[in-house]
């Protein structure tokens, strides 16, 4: 890798990006108090919230104009996903947007694309290649009857009569077993190009999930910081003690790096796809780590209260792992990141 390349290093958001962040930030803060997250358990899907999010343009914005979209970039999507993560909103936006974009690229039926852009049909993606008749757990498959999956003979759309049965899980996500034999199967594309599309979609899923985890980690941290400011011991605020403050300082450091890494990865994926395929994976690894750290440190900062279901940190703790684990073992991503380095030195 050329380590000393003369490139811009501008991580700042322009006015439009700032507007996206603020618009969706306001929306999510207003619409999704923690009670709404709790009410959506255990499925983790709030149909009314989904409708409102669709009305905000979230499901169509990043589709090509031809497919009824606004050609928004992955950078915009990362900003939306981060805001979504801040309130751990119970909506399948990440899977749906990624699968819709893949559908558009792979030449999916116009009718389905239109329904997906309008949020009426929720689509999702099997993140692992299908081998034989082996089933796998697919994110959001409990609310989607359209599942895209890659196997040796190509990228296929599996349409079921009904979404598969929900599997209750620690993160309260709409997880379900996906059986490749079930439903109607249409091969959309095959060959190396189709495989590249599938791999890019998985990377997009990891990137947007990374952004959601950054938002999640940020809110989790804030709960701990606010608690540390007001809680007292021995006549001083606990937040003034370095044993309490330093882990929080470490967490905000991890989050800041994770956030900027998702931005950078999104920029490369939008503007120079193929130049840094390792970055979305690196962002996912870092964000998963930051979310795990943040949730535990924040819960611990809140003492016994941080271990109770009443405390909002519980929502974040359970989803930090419950969301990141859907992307599989980060070890696999780390191996790919290392392989990219080896190929370049």
């Amino acid at each position, binding site marked *: 890798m050329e380590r000393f390349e*003369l490139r811009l290093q501008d991580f700042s958001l322009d006015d439009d990006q700032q507007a996206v962040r603020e618009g969706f930030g306001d929306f999510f803060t207003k619409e999704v108090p923690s009670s709404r997250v709790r009410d959506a358990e255990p499925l983790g899907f709030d149909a009314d919230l989904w409708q409102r999010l669709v009305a905000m343009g979230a499901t169509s914005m990043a589709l090509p104009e031809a497919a009824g979209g606004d050609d928004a970039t992955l950078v915009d999507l990362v900003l939306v996903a981060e805001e979504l993560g801040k309130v751990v909103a119970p909506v399948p936006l990440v899977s749906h947007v990624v699968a819709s974009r893949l559908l558009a690229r792979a030449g999916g039926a116009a009718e389905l694309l239109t329904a997906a852009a309008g949020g009426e049909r929720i689509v999702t993606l099997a993140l692992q290649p299908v081998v034989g008749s082996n089933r796998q757990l697919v994110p959001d498959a409990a609310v989607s009857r359209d599942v895209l999956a890659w196997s040796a003979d190509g990228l296929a759309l599996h349409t079921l009569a009904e979404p598969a049965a929900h599997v209750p899980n620690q993160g309260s996500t709409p997880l379900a077993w996906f059986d490749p034999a079930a439903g109607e199967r249409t091969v959309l594309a095959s060959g190396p190009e189709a495989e590249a599309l599938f791999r890019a979609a998985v990377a997009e899923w990891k990137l947007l999930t990374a952004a959601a985890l950054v938002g999640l980690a940020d809110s989790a941290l804030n709960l701990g910081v606010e608690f540390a400011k007001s809680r007292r011991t021995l006549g001083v605020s606990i937040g003034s003690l*370095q044993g309490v403050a330093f882990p929080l300082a470490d967490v905000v450091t991890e989050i800041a790096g994770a956030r900027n890494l998702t931005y950078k990865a999104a920029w490369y994926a939008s503007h120079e796809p193929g130049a840094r395929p390792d970055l979305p994976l690196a962002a996912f690894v870092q964000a998963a780590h930051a979310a795990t750290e943040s949730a535990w440190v924040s819960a611990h900062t809140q003492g016994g209260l941080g271990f109770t279901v009443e405390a909002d940190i519980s929502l974040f703790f359970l989803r930090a792992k419950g969301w990141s684990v859907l992307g599989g073992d980060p070890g696999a991503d780390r191996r790919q990141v290392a392989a990219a380095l080896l190929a370049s030195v």
Partner: protein
Amino acid sequence: MDFAPVELTPEQQAFQREVRAFLDEIVTEEVHEHERRTGDGFDERVHLALGSRGWLFPTWPVEHGGAGLDDVCARILALELARRRVPYVTSGTTGGVWPAVERYGAPDLVAELRPQVATGRVRFCLGYSDPESGSDIAASHTRAVRDGDEWVINGSKMWTTGAHNCQYTFLITRTDPEAPKHKGLTMILVPLDSPGVEIQAIHTYGGERTNAVYYSDVHVADRYRLGEVNGGWAVLRGPLDEEHGDGRGNGLDDLSIGVGYTREFQRAIDAAARWAKRTSRPDGTLVADDPVFLDRLGRLVVETEAADATPGPMGRNKASLSFIAGIAELVDLVGPEALIAHGGEGAVDGGAIDYAHRFAQGTATYGGTTDVFKNIIAQHVLGLPRLRLPGDKQLVR
């Protein structure tokens, strides 16, 4: 947001070629050998050569001794210097101190020194840390007493890196021991050739040389005072804030203030990656094919990517702490070969990992320890309350 390659104008392209050709000529293997031997963070020949081009203060106007470079050309130069690992410590401290001299020094002093720092003949080092108080800079005890038109200085400083290659030290002195801690300090630019100054070498296992500097009845003319008497804290904050950085760039510079540390880490990682591609284990398997090796190496790569993307005071901590944790892991991954020094048989990429493992350790200490930075992050990034301590405002031993 933008990470695009910078399009160079024909003039900028020519400048890039000029920089590369010039540096290829002056940054010889001998320069690196000198650095390995002395740990000075400074090479006089290179320093003066850069000064002769106006490249020590490259954005200064030519009439001040700079090269009048635009931001892009300055970045071109910075990248080429970093690529060749040109010793940077003393040029860095000189550049860091200058703004305080310019702002607080008497006009004739500024006029005298400006051309000399530009050519490289005059260099500055940092005289902050007392033997008793490194982190608590404002608790400095090194005493300066007024005597007519002069100051008489007594005391000692630890860790004055580069003192033996510098003409002046940017010294923090105690001028009023009765005043509250921050209000009895005065900054003086002390000529290091003054009688009574004694410089003794201190060596680190990172290979660096730094110094203890002793001051015995050192007489310094009042014209070398910077700023008000007892107003030294404000004068010192300038370079310190610069050293700590504010995390905002011009879109060209690296985001992280710890980028120099991360570059050394990446150099070691790249060395390990090349090693893995050419090395078979005793059982005949290629290291590069080992998924466990890749998993662990990949984690370190992610750490460097995160470090480079971390802003403000957090960027420094991430760079240091990920380097220290990660380089130990990298040594485990490569095994004993990793610790063979430059020139030893089987040294990996000229001992890059051996060096990085030693060098990493100091990065969490100088420039303010990572713990001091955690205090800064806790208070200024998170808004957590500050612990009240007996020495906050008073001088207490």
